[in-house]
């Protein structure tokens, strides 16, 4: 255990940086849950698998798993676009036919799609943990960007934080200042009224899946690089945690998901650091259960938009 004040504070600072890094990844995933829930009141449990897909695709494209190795930036771009497309397809194939069915049907389908996609990944990539070959990743990512005393912030952490911040800002701009964003908010508030105003609800839902899944894909790529481990079930735990973040923030609220992601990342890292490393994962569940018990609408959620957790 660190003893001096200096050691203690640098440990704290290091964990704060690590927690924020993890938190921004959770935030990126969590907005996908929350956006989809906002427009069609569905918890897309297969969202974690889209994130896994992002990691696998980028890994495969840079490492030449599919035969040709692409430059890093190109590979990452393609991976994100394919994730966006996969999200749209997921909705088209699995959820849209159930739009008028009881909500439980879609929820069970979502769980089914999650299992299906995990197994599909297992079939394509096998069960072993894959890692990005160092040679194909820009080397600077692993160099320290900032260093004071014991505290090191790697370029990768800077990239993760910056990417998350930029994407969240762009997302907020889209949601608040574009025609698509206005339609998304209209559907979230009253789907029938939106349709009566001429919003093509199906199309807007597709775009919502594309945006959310694209962001999930980005998160998958960043995590794949950060932990340097890509495997078929990686989306499960990350998905649950990001879902907890979305619930914490108030499902349906994008700022809520961002804040929830940050809090969850910090709580996990600090919990692991100060209580026990084996508690890291449990903290997400504890937070989620606590929120559902104490404040089901979450930090930013409106009680009325939280039908799933009422009574």
């Amino acid at each position, binding site marked *: 255990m660190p003893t001096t004040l200096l050691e203690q504070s640098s440990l704290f600072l290091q964990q704060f940086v690590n927690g924020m890094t993890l938190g921004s990844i959770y935030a990126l995933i969590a907005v996908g849950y929350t956006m989809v829930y906002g427009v069609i009141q569905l918890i897309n449990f297969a969202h974690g698998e889209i994130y896994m897909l992002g990691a696998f695709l980028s890994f495969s494209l840079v490492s030449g798993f599919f035969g040709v190795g692409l430059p890093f930036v190109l590979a990452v771009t393609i991976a994100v676009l394919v994730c966006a497309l996969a999200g749209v397809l997921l909705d088209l194939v699995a959820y849209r036919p159930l739009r008028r069915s009881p909500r439980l049907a879609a929820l069970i389908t979502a769980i089914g799609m999650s299992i299906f996609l995990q197994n599909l990944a297992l079939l394509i990539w096998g069960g072993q943990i894959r890692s990005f070959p160092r040679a194909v990743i820009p080397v600077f990512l692993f160099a320290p960007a900032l260093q004071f005393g014991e505290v090191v912030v790697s370029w990768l952490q800077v990239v993760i934080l910056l990417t998350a911040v930029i994407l969240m800002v762009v997302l907020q701009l889209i949601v608040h200042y574009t025609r698509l964003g*206005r339609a998304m908010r*209209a559907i979230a508030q009253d789907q*029938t009224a939106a349709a*009566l*105003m*001429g919003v093509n609800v199906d199309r807007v839902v597709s775009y919502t899946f594309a945006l959310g899944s694209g962001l999930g894909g980005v998160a998958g790529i960043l995590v794949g690089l950060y932990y340097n481990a890509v495997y078929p079930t990686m989306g499960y735990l990350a998905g649950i945690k990001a879902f907890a973040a979305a619930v914490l923030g108030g499902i349906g609220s994008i700022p809520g998901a961002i804040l929830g992601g940050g809090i969850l990342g910090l709580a996990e890292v600090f919990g692991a650091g100060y209580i026990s490393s084996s508690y890291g994962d449990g903290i997400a569940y504890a937070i989620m259960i606590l929120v559902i018990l104490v404040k089901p609408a979450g930090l930013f959620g409106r009680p009325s938009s939280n039908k799933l957790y009422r009574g």
Partner: protein
Amino acid sequence: MPLLKLNDIHCYYGNIHALKGVSFEIYHGEIRTLIGANGAGKSTVLMAISAILKPRQGEILYDGMPVAGRAPDELVQAGLCQVPEGRRIFPDMTVGENLEMGAYCRSGRAAIKANLEMVYDLFPVLSKRRRQAGGSLSGGEQQMLALGRALMSQPELLLLDEPSLGLAPLMVEKIFSLIERIAGEGITILLVEQNAQAALRLADYGYVMESGKIILEAPARKLLQDERVKEAYLGE
């Protein structure tokens, strides 16, 4: 040719037979009203016209073309707009954003802007509150917002579902005079109301609905004098 024509429409909610063969029509420039008690099926008629509900039987023609197979947004684009029961404005959007949603299907910034000024002229209170959340308006103001939002789509046919619902008598009068002004602009109006008195005074022609059927129809002046209507709907 009627602007809108319903021919033997049957609608169901699960096993509930909500519309049992509804037929009527409305011509360009008219105000027609559909009156009836709670649960008669009035809102169901409007939702079927807007293609939110699919009739199991019968045909709806808008401007001579079948509504079946078209999506709600295509109908809005074709000039058919509904102000649904309970106003259903977007509560978390500002008044301005709500109005912009009305113009969702349109293009041409300048024309939309001109339309917006027209709406603000018609409803000065909306102009005063343009940055306020829709949900923070009073019931009457929300009804005006719902009307204004619909006008932003430049409708040819406006379907109004109980615009007087839950409003104080003075506000009801105000809303009805606004509807009259809107009709004066040449917009055809199908007005669903429980306030039969006010609706029949405004309308050219009226239909009385009961348990999913139209049981009576006549020019509005005649319905106002009809003994059955007087007894059942005018409280006389």
